[in-house]
């Protein structure tokens, strides 16, 4: 597992060096695309959600985080939500945002629903057990999430270490571009039309 994490870091580090220079994207273009994964988790309405089937052909922003997250998660979600408001209705319908909780013991389905609705009621919240989510993360070459002990005696107070980047799947059902923390609304606004209408054939 540590070897895998190191491989991820190397992959992302090399991806970052090409940021801004590849296809005009502000996000980091991966040297080698990954296919849209086929996994099933529970959606906030309690029904199973088959990711590959439900998001096929869409631009999909996939993020792993938790609702007690102080800034990385809400900043990413708020910036994406703000940028989506500038799209035409037609383009907006072709973008989905999927948030997978890395803290299933505290993030109940209602809590997840309530938190995501604070950004955009269409954002999809998914929940599964730790091992299932870890398997999905490693399939996407992300380091698995880890629980960090908090600074108080309260066992319910802890943080969750998680990958800070948003994965952007494109209509060709592949992952080509990832967005690190620090991506601004202006960057999202710049890349959204490229993600929606870009041509990945020949790659």
């Amino acid at each position, binding site marked *: 597992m540590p070897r895998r*994490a190191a491989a991820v870091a190397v992959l992302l580090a090399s991806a970052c060096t090409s940021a801004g220079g590849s296809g005009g994207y502000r996000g980091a273009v991966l040297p080698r695309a990954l296919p849209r994964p086929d996994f099933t988790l529970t959606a906030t309405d309690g029904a199973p959600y088959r990711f590959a089937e439900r998001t096929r052909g869409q631009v999909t922003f996939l993020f792993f985080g938790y609702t007690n997250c102080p*800034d990385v998660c809400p900043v990413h979600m708020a910036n994406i939500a703000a940028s989506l408001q500038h799209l035409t209705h037609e383009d907006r319908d072709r973008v989905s945002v999927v948030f997978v909780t890395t803290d299933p013991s505290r993030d109940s389905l209602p809590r997840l629903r309530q938190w995501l609705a604070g950004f955009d009621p269409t954002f999809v919240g998914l929940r599964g057990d730790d091992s299932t989510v870890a398997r999905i993360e490693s399939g996407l070459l992300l*380091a698995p999430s880890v629980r960090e002990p*908090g600074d108080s005696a309260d066992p319910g107070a802890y943080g969750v270490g998680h990958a*800070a980047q948003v994965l952007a799947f494109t209509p060709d059902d592949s992952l080509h571009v990832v967005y690190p923390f*620090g991506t601004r609304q202006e960057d999202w606004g710049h890349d959204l039309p490229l993600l929606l209408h870009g041509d990945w054939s020949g790659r």
Partner: protein
Amino acid sequence: MRRAFLLTSLATLAACHPAPPAYRAGPLTISRVVSPEPVRGGPGGAYFTITNAGPADTLIRVTSAVSDSVSMHRMFDRDGTMLMGPVAEVAIPAGGTVRFAPGHDHVMLEALRRTLVAGDSVPLVLVFRRAGPVPVWARVVAYRDLESALGAR
């Protein structure tokens, strides 16, 4: 004391409008004091910039009348994983500037005593080893307005 502080804040607001107020305590200037509006069910927080024109100081504690649980955290990146750890104190180097910003250091406000809504002001007290306690007001902004409130990267 509280009224004097409020008047000073109002005077600063009026004098500097539309720029947000900055607070001075000896050689320290505290500016861009911002608190993101908690997302439903999420924690509160605070960010600020401390500029030090004098000798080294240390931020040893932050308190707030709106929260029973105020802590300082630092985010760090380990092999692509964003981790967060508690920070007991933050060094403010002589002549230096320290920015609390998303993805770096932040103040976390938990067990909030009241709902914080964009447009509100949150009272905070930054306690420094040399400069002592410095009361400031944080402006509550929506997460989507955080990047503009905090300025350039």
